[in-house]
């Protein structure tokens, strides 16, 4: 990891020196244990801040569209050239955004990093550190282990493999699909089948049970819109959830309003979601959003043989029509 971190710094230094980028988006050390934080660098002297570790879980692609808003793209302004660190999922989001004409490829310099999986802080709980009881004051990554220290200076050793986020263990695109330079080239084994099995299991449940689960999950929502804001795909200037003319949904935390919001947002991800897990991680109340987004991914794959953000050439299913397109799902839910 340290090696990769050094290579990243070297590369970014070179990019600034050769005047290839104006801004670099990467990660720097977080203020909390088990956290790294996104960082935007404009001054070469800040390059030393960059880090690479198992806590770099934020999807950095979310920061890109704001630099290339349609109104600035039309005007005769010089658009910034942005360097960005991309894990597999970030790179897939970037592909999606390029395809949806939100980003000019020529203004991006992508440093791809084959990702070994990022830690899910919530998993620490399952690993025997109930956060209610244990306050982790520091954490250290060593080989395949994470050593956390509690407030009484007691060290607890945890296996990194057990702490990886679900989206990471089932990810099969850990190597970026688009990049200008690739640092490292490890392909990691995944448990995609296991994940698919969970969804298949869920699909088999009776309609009422699925509906109940959905209601239970979304009723936790406090309408903070963190899921939307953390999602690179949610770049709409004005979200349907906030439109007032016409007004689509109420602003309350009434179950029907929340459900409308969640369903609307999730369905807008059909054929676009790259399963990066940004929404799940951002949600402060722990809604199991992925069971819904993953179902969409699975359906799009089955019906249209399409996976979002994998190649720049493939036409997204929602942008095209083929006479042999599946349509049973419309009539037989």
């Amino acid at each position, binding site marked *: 990891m340290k090696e990769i971190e050094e290579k990243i710094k070297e590369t970014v230094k070179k990019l600034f020196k050769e005047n290839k980028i104006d801004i670099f988006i990467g990660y720097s050390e*977080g*203020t*909390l*244990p088990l*956290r*790294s*934080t*996104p*960082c*935007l660098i404009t001054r070469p002297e800040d390059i030393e801040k960059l880090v690479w570790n198992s806590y770099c879980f*934020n999807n950095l692609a*979310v*920061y890109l569209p704001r630099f290339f808003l349609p109104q600035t793209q039309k005007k005769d302004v010089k658009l910034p050239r942005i360097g960005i660190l991309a894990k597999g999922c970030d790179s897939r989001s970037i592909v999606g955004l390029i395809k949806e004409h939100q980003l000019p490829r020529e203004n991006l310099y992508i440093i791809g990093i084959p990702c070994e999986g990022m830690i899910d802080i*919530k998993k620490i*709980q399952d690993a025997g550190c109930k*956060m*209610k*009881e244990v*306050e*982790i*004051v520091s954490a250290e990554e060593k080989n395949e282990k994470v050593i956390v220290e509690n*407030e009484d200076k007691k060290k607890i050793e945890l296996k990194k493999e057990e702490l990886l986020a679900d989206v990471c263990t089932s990810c099969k695109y850990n190597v970026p699909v688009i990049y200008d330079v690739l640092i490292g080239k490890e392909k990691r084994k995944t448990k995609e089948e296991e994940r698919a099995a969970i969804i298949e299991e869920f699909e088999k449940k009776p309609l009422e049970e699925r509906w109940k689960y959905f209601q239970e999950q979304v*009723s*936790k*929502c*406090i*309408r*903070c*819109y*963190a899921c*939307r*804001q*953390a999602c690179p795909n949610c770049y709409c200037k*004005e979200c349907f959830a*906030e439109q*007032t003319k016409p*007004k689509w949904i*109420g*602003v*309350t*935390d*009434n*179950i029907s309003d*929340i459900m409308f919001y969640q369903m609307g947002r999730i369905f807008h991800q059909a054929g676009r979601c790259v399963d990066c897990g*940004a929404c799940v*991680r*951002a949600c*402060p*109340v*722990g809604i199991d959003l992925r069971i819904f987004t993953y179902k969409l991914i699975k359906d799009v794959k089955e019906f249209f043989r399409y996976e979002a953000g994998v190649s720049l050439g493939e036409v997204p299913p929602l942008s095209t029509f083929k006479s042999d397109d599946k349509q049973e799902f419309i009539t037989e839910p």
Partner: protein
Amino acid sequence: MENLKLKIIKKKDVLNFLDSLKEEYNILVPKEKDGDIRFSEFSSGEDIPWDYRNTKISPKEIFLPRTETLFSFKEGTLTPSDSGGVFAPANEPKGSAQKTDSNKRTANYLIFGIRPCDAQAFSLLDKLFGGDDFQDPYYLKRKEQAVIISLACNKPQITCFCTSLKGKPDNEEGSDIILFDLGENILTKPITKKGEEFIENLNSWFKEAKEADIEKKNKLMDLSLKKICSGVDLHNIKEKLDEAFDISLWNEIHQKCLGCGICTYLCPTCYCFNIIDEMDHETGGLATSRGKRIRCWDSCMFSLFTLHASGHNPRPTFKERMRQRIMHKFNYCPENFKEIFCVGCGRCIRNCPVNLDLRETLASLMSFGSMSKDKKV
């Protein structure tokens, strides 16, 4: 002298004690659900998680619910909402902490075991909702009917920085009574007259505190205070920020902000709300004369917050919104209420999806050279 008011109740008696008050009060206690703690209705036999750190969603939702109906209207007549108490009627939105048995006769309630920082936050909200200029009957009614019993912190979190503000693990402001968890015993200390009367009326449950108990409490609090090791020097922050509206630092501070509402929605002192009319569904929302006026939380981090009817938005980007959040808490509120509207609970730090740490933001603002010289935006 003050020590005379200190009483002891056995921890194992607390559940029975609360049980005996169930008729008289609606009791809200910290409860675990899905791995988080939230204030919910006390049910007999369910133990109190004494060592809980803090709730994820702050207990401000008890007095300022996420959504509440102010009144309903029909062809020119108004019907006040019957949600006068904190316990919303059965048809109120799901998921709020105060949702409970609507058949309760009593309107009094007891908030048992909130953290001192959150209690202090109530006293800040009082200044807004019960100030000289405006009185908010919805908030005030709930507040007046409540006895607030806080629980001093034995185990602060790494994100706690109450000591940089006015707080400490046994801060008394905003509480009627404060409790200290001594292990087998709970030491109680009344703060307000309301709290004193409450304990006096229930005297049979308590006995005098011994010198040893008080010593133990003092030791625990010393230890706890030492555990709060993060902080920011906020001396004169109001004056510093007086000059800071146009400084270039705002361009950097907001950069990684995603613009979600977590920091404001989980904050115990953020109070901004939106008021809207919801028309009855059956008429399709068009030209109807029946509906409800609803108040719900709003956040300065949302673009819609300041969007004008003309389409103009005076806070068009994350930069202006982030600046507003900081300035409101640390400059405008000190101007208007002589108080910083932050209690240092650390919720916004702990839950920010991108680890945008308020302590860092404040520290960089505090150390930003001579602010007035740098006017570049």
